[in-house]
């Protein structure tokens, strides 16, 4: 079972690296959107540093959302998803592998780019480790929840806007706890409670969302 999981991850990573140019897109999107905030609001240092925890996380939600589509879209169109269900291994494990691979492609670069962009928004240095931790725990949750939405809309044309409508309300707890932890760290308050809640959310999502994704994919294929 573990080897099946690893095979799926390796296969998805391989497919992603064959189209290397697309790997950069969510990162560039992230950088550009964050850049818009000083231009649109104010370049004032104090103001931006107050805004920073929210901005870096709201933008991370959007970047996760737009990169989410690619997790099943192509596999759904060429029939690979059906093969997952025909396999001798439980589909939840294989789906978990796909989500992990997708997170490695889209979530892992965020670990570097989010703290970097936060520095551009004058976030205080002491909050950077906290931000790093919240991105590390938070982005897998985004991938796990987002995959449910993608699985439900996989059979639809132009599901992109619909996906946002379905998934963004479900992302709200991640946003609250993650930006809350960073805000607390900026003010020098204890933030472990927020991080613990994020961790609990990750565990819950890891357990439940593969089941929901597999049920949703079955619905979309019918």
């Amino acid at each position, binding site marked *: 079972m573990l080897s099946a999981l690893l095979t799926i991850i390796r296969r998805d990573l391989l497919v992603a690296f064959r189209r290397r140019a697309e790997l950069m897109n969510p990162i560039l999107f992230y950088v550009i959107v964050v850049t818009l905030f000083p231009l649109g609001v104010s370049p004032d240092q104090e103001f931006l540093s107050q805004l920073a925890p929210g901005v870096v996380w709201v933008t991370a939600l959007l970047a996760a959302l737009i990169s989410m589509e690619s997790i099943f879209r192509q596999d759904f169109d060429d029939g690979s998803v059906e093969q997952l269900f025909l396999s001798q291994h439980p589909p939840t494990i294989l789906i978990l592998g796909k989500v992990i691979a997708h997170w490695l492609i889209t979530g892992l670069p965020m670990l570097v780019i989010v703290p970097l962009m936060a520095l551009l928004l004058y976030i205080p240095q002491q909050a950077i480790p906290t931000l790093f931790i919240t991105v590390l725990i938070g982005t897998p949750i985004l991938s796990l929840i987002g995959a*449910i939405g993608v699985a*439900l*809309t996989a*059979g*639809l044309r132009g*599901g992109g806007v*619909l996906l946002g*409508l*379905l998934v*963004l*309300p*479900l992302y*709200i*707890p991640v946003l*609250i*706890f993650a930006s*809350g932890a960073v805000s*607390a760290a900026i003010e020098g308050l204890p933030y472990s409670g927020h991080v613990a*809640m994020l961790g609990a*959310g990750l565990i819950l999502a890891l357990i*439940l969302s593969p089941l*929901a994704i597999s*049920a*949703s994919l079955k*619905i*979309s294929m*019918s």
Partner: protein
Amino acid sequence: MWAWFHKLSSPKYYYEWSGKWLPWLGGLTILLSAIGLYWGLVVAPTDYQQGESYRIIFIHVPAAWMSMFVYMVMASAGFVALVWKTKISEIVVSECAVIGAVFTAIALVTGMLWGKPTWGTYWTWDARLTSELILLFLYFGVIAIYSSIEDKRVAAKAASMLSIVGVINIPIIHYSVTWWNSLHQPNMEIISDKPSMDPSMLYPLLIMAIAFKVYFVWVLFMRIRNEIISRERATKWVKELVTAS
């Protein structure tokens, strides 16, 4: 008992069975809301703090209760629809989404109208207001996915799945919003839950709550019947029904 439930899940039987209930449900709704509204708006005393404006709670509070209740009904029906694949429960999901969204919108609008004279503003980012707004977004999501999938049976299953995911998330969203708010704005001027409500106000409120529940069942039945007729329009019994009337 189970055999009866099974029978109820057939559209034709459901249509006949629910038809008998409609006049009772409609009559009870009108009766209860007439009593509740008269008691609440005319008989009940004026609040010494909020004046007459508090009377909107006789609409607002039942609507807010219903917004949660309908979501639970929708998610339960969604579970039934996914496990036992009965047609009626699929219809219940899609119809509940619309009714629930309307209740949520009523709760939000009446709350805003009440907030203006009492808090001095239509909207504050209070935890309850925010989670009610997010609940409305969740309803919109269910409606959106239902209406964008063409095959209505597949659409209902997708909507069921989404409502079940939402039901796991509602408590998480609710508590996260509560903590978020308590962290950032601890001393906002909000009237907390009325510690003790006078019976002269409580009874009409409870009557209105029951009236809203009966109204929900009434409207749900009518909407389900409507949807059954539209879905089964090719079948023999619907044709007979139409030609007979």
